[in-house]
């Protein structure tokens, strides 16, 4: 009766049929009220949309929170293994999660890179020392990996807090434009969150990650060569060797603890001692692929292949320009998720390909008797020293 009555009512309303019964009159009235709402209250549809988006965001936010809690719990559990009894690891971890760095003022950009470097390094050192103080039972390599693990947890926590902020702000102000922007970004943010979740596993166990492929290639390049190895900057080592009559300096972060080192400082020191004998700088790093591109593909280009805040990149570019040394770059394609999760086979295999291509480049671009610097960039977690 109900549905039939509605349909009949609508039809009679539309056709202005003469004999209207009670149901059709009520139906017509409801229609009129609806039309009036849309006429007199033009943002009504927007309100409806806001409600839908907020509900969708709430669902995703709950998922984000579950992931945040999972990563925090895993980090806490791992830190506790290396902490002395009596240390309130939970409270210390929460302090670290909220730790921040204030970027230098760039109103007057002169010298801003070195200010940024100073602030970033102080922060990194303080962060690392704090983790070491909590985990006094961990050795040097393990402490570095634990610092990475806490950093992953911090990233995850920050991501959750930012999304929550915009969700609550949009809800409080009923501003559909705020929530629309979050809704547009949320698929990518969820992907990053999932990558953080998997990264926490990798750092908990000390497994190599996709980002480490540059270091892996550098290590494989000198694996069976006779060489002199020494520390040249903080967490950074250099292998000094010779290759087909050329002097070869292979720079990388020290492993197998998680570290990216300070390749620019190492490079500057080598340039100081070698002077104009250096004829090429070759950098190997993981690079962000575009959707649809193949993971583990090796591409070749020119420039400083290094990520991060930009300080290292700036210093390397400046030094190479000053001495007029060409910068060659090898990049191994991967997605942002693949870069911080356990290394995939195709990425690991790419390291062997890079080694061959680097050797070819050295013999074709650098004459015998001269020097060349090869820098493997990336996180060394799970990659030992050859």
């Amino acid at each position, binding site marked *: 009766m109900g549905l039939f009555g509605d349909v009949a009512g609508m039809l009679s309303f539309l056709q202005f049929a003469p004999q209207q019964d009670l149901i059709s009159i009520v139906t017509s009235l409801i229609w009129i009220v609806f039309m009036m709402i849309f006429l007199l209250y033009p943002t009504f549809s927007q309100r409806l949309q806001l409600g839908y988006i907020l509900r969708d965001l709430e*669902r995703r936010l*709950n*998922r984000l929170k*579950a*992931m945040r809690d*999972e990563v925090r719990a895993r980090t806490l559990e791992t830190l506790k293994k290396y902490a002395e009894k009596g240390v309130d690891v939970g409270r210390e971890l929460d302090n670290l999660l909220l730790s921040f760095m204030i970027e230098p003022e760039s109103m007057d950009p002169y010298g801003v890179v070195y200010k940024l470097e100073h602030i970033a390094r102080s922060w990194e050192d303080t962060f690392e020392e704090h983790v070491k103080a909590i985990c006094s039972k961990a050795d040097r390599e393990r402490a570095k990996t634990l610092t990475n693990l806490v950093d992953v947890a911090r990233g995850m926590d920050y991501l959750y807090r930012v999304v929550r902020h915009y969700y609550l702000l949009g809800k409080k102000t009923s501003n559909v434009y705020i929530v629309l922007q979050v809704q547009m970004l949320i698929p990518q943010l969820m992907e990053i969150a*999932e990558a953080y*979740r*998997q990264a926490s*596993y990798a750092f908990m*166990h*000390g*497994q*190599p990650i996709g980002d480490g492929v540059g270091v*892996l290639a550098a*290590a494989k390049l000198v*694996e069976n060569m006779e060489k002199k190895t020494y520390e040249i900057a903080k967490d950074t080592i250099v292998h000094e060797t010779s290759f087909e009559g050329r002097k070869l300096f292979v720079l990388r972060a020290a*492993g*197998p603890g998680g570290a990216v080192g300070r390749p620019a400082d190492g490079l500057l020191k080598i340039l100081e001692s070698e002077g104009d004998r250096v004829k090429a700088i070759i950098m190997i790093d993981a690079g962000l692929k575009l959707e*649809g*591109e*193949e993971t583990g593909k090796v591409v070749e280009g020119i420039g400083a292949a290094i990520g991060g805040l930009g300080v290292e990149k700036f210093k390397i570019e400046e030094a190479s320009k000053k001495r007029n040394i060409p910068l060659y770059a090898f990049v191994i394609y991967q997605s942002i998720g693949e870069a911080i*999760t*356990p*290394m*995939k*086979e*195709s*990425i*690991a295999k790419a390291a062997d390909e890079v080694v061959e291509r680097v050797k070819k480049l050295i013999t074709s671009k650098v004459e015998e008797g001269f020097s060349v610097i090869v820098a493997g960039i990336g996180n060394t977690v*799970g*990659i*030992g*020293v*050859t």
Partner: protein
Amino acid sequence: MFSQFRAGKPVPKPMTYLKCLECGTINSRPFKDGDYVFKIVEEKCPKCGSNKMKIIGIYVKEPQKKQAQSRIVSRRA
């Protein structure tokens, strides 16, 4: 209501690839804590029984790519 999300995606488990320093045989096993690439471990070679093996790789094995998965995704020629 959120139960479908709680579990999350399974986390990929890497394998450790070892090469015997005596006979050069390569074999693999699941990753164990403490493993790292280029580490020399005291594990028995399944072929010659030698006691020294070197970790030559730690990575997640990928399933063989299906042919003609998509026309849009680039494939190796």
